[in-house]
Every structure is written in C-alpha cells, then in structure tokens.
C-alpha cells in the first residue's frame, strides 16, 4: 500500500552496487542493472525482488554451482554464472533477470550475460540500500524471528476461523 511507484529503490540499488564512481565516469560507461524492479498493475505498485527462499528453486536449477545461501541470503556468484537462464525460469516470483555486462566479454567476444537479482546488499555496512532510500518507508527487512511470529499469528487466525466456521455449522445443524 505504501509504495508510490517512484523507483527510487532501483536507483539506490544500482548506486549501492556500482559505487559512487558511476557519477564520475562517462554517462554511458557503467551498467545500470537494478536488482529489483517496480511493477505496476491496475491496483498494485510494488518492487518485485528476491524472497530469499529457504529451499531456492533457482539454486536447484543452477547448472554451474553459482547460487549459494550465505547467512540466510541467496547469492549469485556472477563470476561462476554461465548465463543459461535456468534460474530465471525456475524462480516462481520472476525475481531474476538476465542482464548484459558492458565490461565483460565471453571467450567468443560476445557481451557476457549473467543472472541478476537482489543480494540484500551483502557488502553494505548500512544494510539494503532500497530500504534506506524509499521515501515512504514501504520496504522492510523481515528477519527470521519476525517471520516466526507472523507465521504463528497466521496459524492462530486460521485456527480461529476454522473453529468459528465449525461452531457456525454446528449451530446451523442444531437449528
């Protein structure tokens, strides 16, 4: 609900990963590959990004052992990526995009294409850049403990609904 679709997160992401030199080099001399993408539909505006699944489909699909879980974060090691797109196809959220690197070439001289997705700003001391730059604070980092509580609440709510429905059914039969 909070997202206003401004895409500041996408720019924040690139600046965080590419470094400040992008403001000094030739305007066409750096890669602009945000690791999240704002999607707008009739009723939703939201950045789509990696959910860092517990058992990632992308990791299972990767043929070059380029995807790993480090400290609970799913990471693509770009140097090992062969650009086969298997992970992008496997991801149920569409959170992986294939991007072409301006700086790197394959052995045959063709531009090198690799999988690109959110790494929760692993190397950033202040944490994910998108969180910091969002003007409406629409993004939030959910930790394992938060998740436990959310799950518990959801289960209790479901149980409550089920019990309520059962009681109603009993009452209806009784009537």
């Amino acid at each position, binding site marked *: 609900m909070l997202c*206003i679709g401004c895409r500041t997160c996408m720019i924040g992401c690139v600046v965080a990963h590419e470094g400040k030199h992008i403001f000094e080099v030739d305007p066409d001399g750096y890669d602009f590959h945000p690791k999240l993408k704002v999607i707008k539909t009739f009723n939703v505006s939201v950045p789509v990004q990696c959910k860092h699944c517990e058992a990632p489909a992308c990791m299972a699909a990767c043929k070059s052992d380029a995807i790993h879980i480090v400290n609970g974060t799913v990471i693509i090691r770009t140097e090992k990526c062969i650009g086969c797109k298997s992970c992008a196809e496997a991801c149920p959220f569409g959170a992986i995009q294939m991007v072409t690197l301006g700086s790197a070439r394959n052995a045959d001289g063709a531009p090198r294409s690799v999988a690109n997705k959110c790494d929760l700003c692993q190397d950033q001391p202040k944490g994910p850049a998108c969180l910091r730059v969002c003007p409406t604070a629409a993004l939030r980092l959910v930790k394992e403990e938060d998740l436990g509580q959310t799950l518990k609440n959801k289960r209790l709510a479901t149980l409550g609904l089920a019990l309520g429905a059962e009681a109603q059914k009993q009452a209806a039969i009784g009537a």
Partner: protein
Amino acid sequence: MSMGVHEIEDAALLFVFGYNGADSHPIVARRIVRAKQKGAKIICCDPRRIETARIADMHLQLKGGTNLLLVNALANVIIEEGLCDDDFIEKHSTGFEEFKEVIKKYTPEGVAERTEISAGEIRKAARMYAQSGRSMILYGMGVCQFGQAVDVVKGLANLAIMTGNFGRPAVGIGPVRGQNNVQGACDMGALPNVYPGYQSVTVPAIREKFEKAWGVKLSDQPGITLTNVPHHVLHEPDPKKRIHAYYIMGEDPAQSDPDLAEVRESLEKCDFVILQDIYMNKTGQYADVILPATGWCEHDAVYSCCDRGFQKARKLIEPTGDVKRDWEIIGLISKAMGRPMEYTNTVQIWNEVIDLCPGFMGATDEKLEKNACIQWPCRSKEEHDMGTVFLHKDGKFAHPDGKAKFAPSEWRPPQELENEEYPLSFSTVREVGHYSVRTMSGNCRTLRNLEDEPGWIQMNPEDCGELGLRHGELVKVRSKRGYCITRCLPTERVKKGATYMTYQWWIGACNELTIGNLDPISKTPEYKYCACRVEKIEDQAWAEKHVREEYEEIRANMGIQTKGGRAA
C-alpha cells in the same frame, strides 16, 4: 495553499482532485500516505488509476474535461441533503442564495452520463466530504490546465466554504503548485499584473512606492502573460506594440508551451531572444544571446514552498566555468541599461523585498536562519510573529467585508473534443524522476537510465489492441497541430479512449499536439485536453533509427558532446 503542507497528515478526509502527488511531488505524496496511515479517508478524483487512487476509499474516475460538472454536483448534493455548515455560511460568506440558484440544475443524475460517475457515487462522496469534520482539498494541474480552470478552483473553494472547511487546522484547499519555487516566482512579482507581494501595478500609491524605492518611472499597465507572447510577436499589427525582444530565464517555452510549431515561429520571428539558464535547452537553439547561470547548489537563495513557506537554500559548492548568479546577471544588465543595481549578497536583496511587501515584512533573514520555514503572511518583524500556518483563521477572508464570496459558474466543455479524424482524447501529465522540461533531470544520468527519449504514450490495452500495438513499439501521435514519435505503453490505469504523455521529451515532444486554448483569467493553456490519433509505424527499424538520429541531431545542435563524436 490555505494550509501548511505538514497539515495534510492530520486531515480526517483528503479530497484529492486532479492532483497526482506520487508522480509530481513524491515528498508531498508521502504526506498523503501518512494521512492514510493515521486513519484519514481519501477521495481521489482523477481519470487515471493514479497511485493515490489505489489507496483511496473512493476513486471517482471521471471523464476528462468534466471537472466543474462533478464539483457543482457535489455542491448540489451538499445543499439538497442539508449537509451545509449553515452557521459558517451565515457568518462568514456572501452570495449563497445566488450560488444555490446556479447549482440547482447540477443534479448527480444530470451529470452522471457526462462525468461517467454514477449518481450514487457522487452522493456518497459529497456526504463523506461534508461530514468528516476536517476535510482538506488538494488539487493540481488536472484542475488548472484547462480552458475552464479558475472556475473549477472557485468551485472547490465553494465546497470548502459551504461546509465550513476553512480557517482551522488541517482543512482548506491546497493547490499543490507544479514546480519548485513557482510560488516564489509569483510571490516575487513574476506575474504581469502585480509587483512583489501581490501589489497591483494599477494602484497609484503602490506604483509610487516602488518608483521611489527603485528610482525609476514605472508603467501603470499590466504586462503580457507568457502564453500570449506568440500572439504579440506574430499577430500584433502595430509594430510599436509588438514584442521585439524576449528575455527568458529558467524556462523552456520551445518545450513546455502548447502548440510548439507556433512557439518556434514566434521565437524565430522575434528580433532578439535572450536565454538565461543553467544548461542548454530547446529554446536556446533560437536564442541570440545565452547567459549561463548558476545551479541551485551554487548560490544562496530563498524559496517559497506551495504553502507560502519561505525557506533559505544555501550554497554548497563554488560555481565553476563562465557562469554568474542570476541576481548578478540582472544587476549587470540593469547597470548597462542605465540603472545601477548594486547588491553584494542575497540578504541585501531579501531585506529590500520584505521592506517593500507588507505581507512578507516579518519574514526577516534572522527568522529564516533560526527557523526552517516562515509562512506568509508575516507582517511584523517582532519575534512573536512566526507567520501564518493556515489562512482565514476564525473565518476571516481577504475581501473588504472580511467574508468569503460564493462564486458559481456554469460548466463548459474543452475546446477540442474527440472526432472522427482524431478519435482519442489527449492529456499531458508528469512522471516521477523527470522534472518539468528535463533541462536539469535530463542531465541526471541515473534518471536517464530509468527513462529516456522518446518517452511513452499511456493507452488503454483495448485501444492498443484495436490498433494492433504492442508494448514498447514506436508510434506516431498526431493532432491537428502536429505530431511526435513515442513508445506505446498499454496500461489498465488509463480509461478507454484517453491517452497521456509526459511533456519533457525532446523527440516525444507532446506539446507539438497540445492546443493553445487559454483559461480567460489565468491564461493557462488547456494542456489536459485535445483530440489526437495514434498511428502504427510499420517499419519499426526505420523508426528506431530515426529517433536515434533525431536525438543526436538535437544534442549536437545544443552543443552537447555526443556519442558519435558530433560537433560540441
């Protein structure tokens, strides 16, 4: 704005009319989001499914060009259902009876078909607005950029008066002004009929005051509005009354004004054109002289926010290159023309401003230094006067009798409606990221990474389907006045039959299409309505190449070093 921007968060109901905060002013949009979080109800009136519409309790997706029909119908319901604040009307307003007469015929049922909003929805919205206790209206260019604009502003004010939503915290009506410091430009007298501080040029006592302060003779006639310049260059028969020289500061009429073909002709035919800006722009191509100025971080300044708040902006870096601050340039030109204007810093200028403007008198440099913001009116230099957060306290209005005046108006349709040849309606809009005519933001690399030439035309997917258009395909958009090339963006957020383009692109220059129909009072053009058609381009490869070449050409003309190494 009658209220302060920060008060938006505290309204019980926000009535957002023709104002797309998320794209125009993300920082103000944040206040709207916070209001929602704090429990405010939101009614959004906009033909598009804008971000505010997503979080609104009601979205009145009206047909473009029917603003006054809807506003009058809301007033009609408030009267008919006895939802008026009778006490406020009685004590603080005049003209209610005449107003009622005009409004009588604007029944929700009567306007439902034209506005494309059901009578039930109109009634519900009117009740919500009248009964929230603290209703605030925010409006934007979706109200002002029509041939009938001032009437709608008055219509919105009527709603606020009749429900007593004036003169208290977190109520009122707020035009969220289009650009940074456009309020400041008006405050400082960059209008043809007033000196700084909204002091009329036709009042002899005021003129004499300024003549004495400046030591020059001043005209007692209002000047010409920006949008009337082409007429006074091209069609004024008397050479003495014709405009011969045109001095443009921080504006790009060859990009932002309607009917660009006519603007270009007038710039070409005008004897002498001066452009003062921080980067080259389209208008610069027609200039005889270019005066390079400093950017926002290279000089000290005072800005006015849309809520009348003066704020100091401070120099961060030393300017480099052959540039001067705007006030230095003006001073030098004035001196060369025989009237020395010798300031050494902006505080001197500010002191002169407040001494000549009773409404700003108390906004001293010391107070601006100490406090982030002082909202005018601030009439006393004493420390206790900290300005005015909201206007019309205790129901006191600016008319001589201290009362608000109901101003009824009859609706009139936009000048150019859809027709057989041009079956779609066309409106200019904004997009977040690119500011105004892109003179500045077009030079910001990461913003360019997100969006670049030739921009997009937003269309309903059904219309795209009928024309066989796909997402991203280059199309020709044409009106009676001209055409431009842009990319097709099918989106369900747009109603069938309507199209929208942002106005900053050089190639996708949608003001080639717009119409110079002006509001009779504000002289603002009808950017929000004309008729167009969208044409498929069969040879996409040619179109892509054409767009690239055009872009290179424009950049080369402007002296920008291009990728292909064209002349700088």
